[in-house]
């Protein structure tokens, strides 16, 4: 892989950290961000402490980034929060938090990264959805609704940013063993996996494989797509 500048949100743990480490090991420059301090130690890693839902903080991040990096090749909107709740018992605060991080965060990074992305020869945006959207999982109404919004953003951004040669796609991981689902009961996870064509939990490597596919220069005609792992649809 030629050296790329890749921005990954939510890179301090879980899938985001795995993706960041993978691309660092492949010679890329990785810019990570999260609300917490990043603990990845690598010469080509730069961490920013940012609340992805804050328009001021995200604007400042890109202002700083432009001083160090003249372009970005990819933005991976990985930061996300989930909450298992029966719809009728979901507090309004939970709704706000999930939509702030998952939808507004994705919106802000897609919008603010345009200037740096359009200077790349193969610019890419990758957003994270979930199989909870096609599976319409009970107990995940707000999380799934927020990711439905992300999917619609992905498809419309793909059309608008196509003008600049930027592709925008999404990945819908089936359950991956990360912090995000640590609070989900085991039988719930097993029930989800049972609904997939490939009946196993996904690994970070499965997600990274798809990220690499979207990043390939040869994938320039692939945009506005959502690929679900495990064959859930």
């Amino acid at each position, binding site marked *: 892989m030629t050296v790329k500048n890749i921005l990954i949100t939510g890179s301090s743990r879980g899938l985001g950290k795995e993706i960041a480490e993978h691309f660092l090991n492949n010679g890329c420059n990785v810019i990570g961000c999260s609300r917490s301090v990043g603990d990845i130690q690598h010469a080509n890693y730069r961490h920013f402490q940012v609340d992805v839902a804050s328009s001021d903080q995200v*604007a400042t991040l890109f202002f700083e980034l*432009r001083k160090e990096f003249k372009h970005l090749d990819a933005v991976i909107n990985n930061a996300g929060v989930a909450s298992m709740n029966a719809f009728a018992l979901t507090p309004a605060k939970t709704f706000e938090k999930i939509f702030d991080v998952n939808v507004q965060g994705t919106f802000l990074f897609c919008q603010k990264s345009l*200037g740096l992305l*359009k200077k790349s020869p193969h610019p890419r945006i990758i957003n994270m959805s979930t199989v909870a959207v096609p599976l319409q999982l009970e107990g995940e109404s707000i999380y799934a609704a927020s990711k439905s919004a992300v999917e619609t953003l992905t498809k419309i951004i793909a059309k608008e940013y196509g*003008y*600049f040669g930027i592709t925008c796609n999404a990945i819908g991981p089936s359950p991956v063993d990360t912090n995000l689902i640590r609070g989900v009961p085991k039988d719930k996870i097993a029930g989800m996996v049972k609904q997939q064509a490939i009946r196993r939990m996904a690994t970070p490597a499965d997600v990274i494989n798809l990220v690499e596919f979207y990043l390939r220069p040869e994938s320039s005609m692939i945009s506005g797509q959502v690929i679900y792992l495990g064959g859930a649809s």
Partner: protein
Amino acid sequence: MKKADVQKIIFDAIEMANNLREDNEQIPIAEATALYGNDGYLDSMGLVSFLTDIEESLQDSDIMVSLSDERAMSQTQSPFRDVQTLTSYIDTLINESK
């Protein structure tokens, strides 16, 4: 940054846009040039690209302003309609950000 410097940045952005346009689609580099809306030279994505270039040039001068803020979108008379209105709008934003 003086208003004349802002106008220079806008003219530079027009030049950048012209580099990607056909000879018969060149945007005149002048204060009265209509940019967006009736008789404007830019379509909506052309405007997005143009404003992004201007924001980045301002950032090179250590000025952080968002040209697509709520006020720009809610004004009945778009500040993006010609070079003169855009210059005044950016000048106002810069003064407010001080």
